[in-house]
């Protein structure tokens, strides 16, 4: 019985927990509730994935109203997979959050933090699960507002400025998407994705459809921090509380990519996007720029968190690149990288959360000799970092493999070379940390630190382990991604 309503529960459960957190008014209680809820959401997402994998796409009519009049939750392989990513990261971040939040956020605001966190989670899950474009916009706003709050909670005063910038730009993005949705509604008279997909081919020549496409692509680009629309990201990630950085880096931008994919392939259709509109070329150019600029800037950073933020911009470039090929392998690369990047960036930011928890700093200089003082944390960092570089037997290698295969398939050798060169840049910035942590002696006056608490360490290591496990056993990730890519290219959800 309950399994029939899993799609609704996926969103509703965290949504309800948010006001409860506020009502609890105590950090610990709120944390406990949030953790339980996050794990519940994770369990639900796994159940949904299992269901989708065995039975194919699900359709759930919210409130019993049939589409297109009611809101339809439609779950295929792609969004089931996305749900697992989002909920999984949420579930893994929560245990860490207790210690980390206790150190970084004043006690009287901690319950608010958890409430906002739950709202953000709700929003992200909602964006992914819904089959209705307006509903998508609503959840997008929920996520965004919650995220602005979360970023603003950062201990550094600069967090406020970062949050403000995030808010302005995020709102512009959301508005663009809303404009796009409005234009589409004007022309087609429906908000349901499936119906849109069915009606748009006949209306392709209409200018509003083209305008809608432009607005939605740019709006989604802002959300996913596509170069050069990424300017809000570095500060937001750098000054946000550690766990927020981890959570947002691993999920928010990924969901942005998901939205873009959804609109391009499901709503507008690949033929429209890539054959009638030169989207492929635009995405490729921007993606490559993102990869190079992000990586190069990261090389010069001295704040490791900021370094990872720029690295995220580069990684998003990879995903955009994957989409731009509009081929099976390209899409597989993009989708697999959604998962892979979530795992490795989650692990890296959580490792930094551990470091910050002990050191109170994530400046490169402060991390001298950390390899011996926090061996497990740094080992995790190295493992996830290797993954970022794309060393074989890690998830990064898998994404890179598909990306290069896709580039060569299309005869785009220079693109393949740039992808590989960029992974060398990743090597450079990761290796700066490794060298400092393992082969430099700490200053005499460096504080004596020990390993981070187990509650933080275990989820971090779990994510790093995922980086390696899914780099070796790729059946699930690549399998799902391939199916999803095939169905996206065929068109229709």
């Amino acid at each position: 019985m309950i399994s029939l309503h899993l799609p609704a529960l996926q969103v509703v459960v965290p949504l309800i927990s948010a006001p409860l957190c506020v009502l609890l008014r105590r950090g610990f209680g709120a944390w406990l509730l949030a953790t339980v809820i996050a794990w519940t959401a994770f369990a639900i997402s796994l159940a949904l994935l299992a269901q989708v994998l065995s039975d194919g796409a699900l359709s759930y009519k919210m409130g019993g109203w049939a589409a297109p009049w009611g809101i339809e939750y439609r779950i295929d392989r792609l969004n089931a997979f996305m749900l697992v990513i989002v909920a999984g990261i949420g579930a893994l971040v929560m245990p860490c959050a207790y210690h980390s939040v206790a150190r970084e956020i004043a006690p009287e605001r901690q319950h608010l933090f958890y409430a906002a966190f739950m709202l953000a989670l709700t929003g992200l899950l909602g964006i992914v699960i819904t089959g209705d474009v307006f509903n998508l916009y609503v959840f997008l706003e929920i996520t965004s507002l919650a995220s602005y709050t979360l970023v603003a909670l950062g201990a550094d005063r600069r967090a406020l400025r970062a949050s403000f910038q995030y808010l302005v730009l995020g709102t512009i993005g959301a508005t663009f998407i809303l404009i796009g949705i409005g234009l589409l509604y004007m022309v087609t008279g429906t908000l349901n994705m499936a119906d849109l997909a069915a009606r748009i081919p006949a209306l392709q020549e209409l200018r509003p459809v083209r305008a809608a496409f432009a607005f939605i692509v740019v709006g989604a680009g802002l959300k996913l921090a596509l170069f050069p629309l990424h300017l809000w990201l570095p500060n937001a990630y750098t000054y946000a509380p550690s766990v927020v950085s981890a959570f947002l880096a691993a999920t928010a931008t990924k969901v942005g990519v998901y939205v873009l994919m959804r609109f391009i392939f499901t709503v507008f259709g690949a033929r429209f996007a890539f054959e009638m509109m030169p989207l492929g070329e635009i995405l490729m150019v921007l993606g490559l720029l993102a990869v190079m600029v992000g990586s190069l800037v990261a090389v010069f950073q001295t704040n490791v968190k900021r370094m990872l933020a720029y690295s995220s911009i580069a990684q998003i470039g990879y995903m955009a690149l994957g989409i731009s090929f509009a081929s099976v392998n390209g899409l597989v690369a993009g989708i697999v990288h959604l998962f892979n990047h979530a795992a490795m960036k989650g692990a890296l930011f959580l490792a930094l959360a551990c470091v910050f928890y002990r050191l109170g700093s994530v400046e490169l200089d402060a991390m001298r000799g950390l390899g011996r003082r926090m061996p497990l944390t740094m080992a995790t960092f190295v493992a996830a970092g290797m993954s970022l570089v794309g060393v074989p037997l890690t998830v990064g290698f898998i994404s890179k493999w598909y990306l290069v295969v896709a580039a060569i398939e299309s005869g785009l050798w220079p693109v393949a070379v740039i992808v590989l060169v960029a992974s060398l840049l990743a090597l450079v910035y990761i290796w700066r940390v490794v060298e400092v942590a393992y082969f430099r002696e700490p200053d005499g006056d460096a504080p004596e630190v020990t390993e981070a608490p187990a509650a933080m360490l275990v989820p971090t290591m779990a994510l790093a382990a995922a980086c390696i496990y899914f780099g070796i056993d790729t059946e699930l990730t690549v399998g799902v991604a391939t199916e999803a890519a095939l169905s996206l290219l065929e068109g229709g959800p």
Partner: protein
Amino acid sequence: MIEAMPPGLVLIAGAFLLPATSGVARKALVLALPLATLGLVWSIPDGPALTLVFLDYTLTPVEGSRLGRLFATAFALMAFAGGLYAVNQARVVEIAAAFAHAGSAIGVAFAGDLVTLFVFWELMIIGSTLVIWSAGTDSAYRAGMRYTLVHLFGGIVLMIGIIGHIAETGSVTFEAMHADSLSRWLILAGFLVNAGAPPLSAWLPDAYPEASPSATVFLSAYTTKTAVYVLMVGFAGEGVLVWVGLYMVFYGIIYALLENDMRRILAYSIINQVGFMVTGIGIGTQMALNGSAAHAFAHIIYKGLLLMSAGAVLHQTGKRKCTDLGGLFRSMPITTVCGIVGAMAISSFPLTSGFVSKDMIGQAAGDQLLALVWFLLAAGSAGVFLHAGIKFPWFVFFQKDSGLRPPDPPWNMWAAMSLFAFLCIGLGVYPAPLYAMLPYAVNYVPYTSAHLVFQFQLLLFSGLAFFLLLPQMKRTLTLTLDFDWFYRHFLPRLCRAVASRGSETRRRVEHATMTRIRLVLEPFFRFHRPEGILARSWPTGGATVWVAVLLAVTLVIYYWQGAR
């Protein structure tokens, strides 16, 4: 199995044993090892005595033959006399290395296939280099390096030739062949490098005289004579060798005449003598080959004797230049007599070993009616007396009185000299045992009145020429440039010039490249550094402009696309 062991291995194994012994045991070993080897040499029957499979080939590392036995006998004798000569004087490493060298030479003499031959050939290089180095002087080190490099070059030329030959014929057997393909020309060239043939002949006078007194004695016997042996087996009758040999004959004479260092005179004289043998091989008749073989045997003994006497002088006086020496007959009578006996033998005076061996070659040239060759050989014979027969004893033991009054050398040295002096005369008086060892039946009678008259006239009038032109022969403190100038002087300078020019160019190119790269990358990096345009935090307004720009661009593109 033991009788089929390569006889040379006794000496090679002994070389490793020697450093581990000391005192009387070592001395006994030094004398016993060559004799044991000699015994083994004579126990090898004709024909293949041992086969084994190595790499992809079936080898016959030991194959008895008359010629091989003749050379091996000479080599073992030399090892014995040389060991005796060196037993109290030389460093153990010198004797050990010399034994390894000798053992390898004997290995070559019994090699039934080209692979074995080559392996021993290369081992000879190692042994002889160590012999030269054991002098311990800086000049010996440098000369030794040059020696090794020349021989490694010769060795690898030979190796390439052998490999090519095996690839062409599929046979590894070492047998008579003709210089009719590149690989066999290379084999010939490799052999000739060791024979001291032009143009790479300078290694011999360059290296041998830098070795210690006893070491030079060892060295004189093996390298060139193994070359004679292999040429004799492989290239008998190869026409070009006649002219190569004659060139060597006169090259040796001319350079020896100009030379001041007594052992270098004798070194040039080795090339001169080997030239006779090579000419004989080039003529290639049974008479000629017998002559070359007999002459090689005799030569090992008298050249050993000459170098022993020179070595005794060097050992006793520490001087090696003719300009510093002279008048030593007063205090070194034994050495003087032995030196003269050697000088007579090399000049083929009747009643010495040279007389019964060398003229077989001339005889062969005459029999084949090779007029030019015959006349040149006759002139060469006269020249031998000139540069070695008189010049060496005259300038070392007589000429002016240098004031030096060293005594004769220790007993073991003069004993070794006496042994070889005895052999020089013994073989000259009673050549039958030597003739019995030769590869072909001997159809030659040395002691005829015509031969005796011819030889006396030739030699005595050569002597007359020497004394008449004695003022012209006055020694000067000079050396004579040879082909080694190219690798001692020209090549190093060239390399230095190229290297300094090259590194200068490289530095300039590297600098220019680095500057250019930096120029290109610098603005690039500037954008990406923390304060750069791409890395710094943008004001929100600026960021929004980007959004507007991108939207505008997208819209324009999409509209334009649609309008098309």
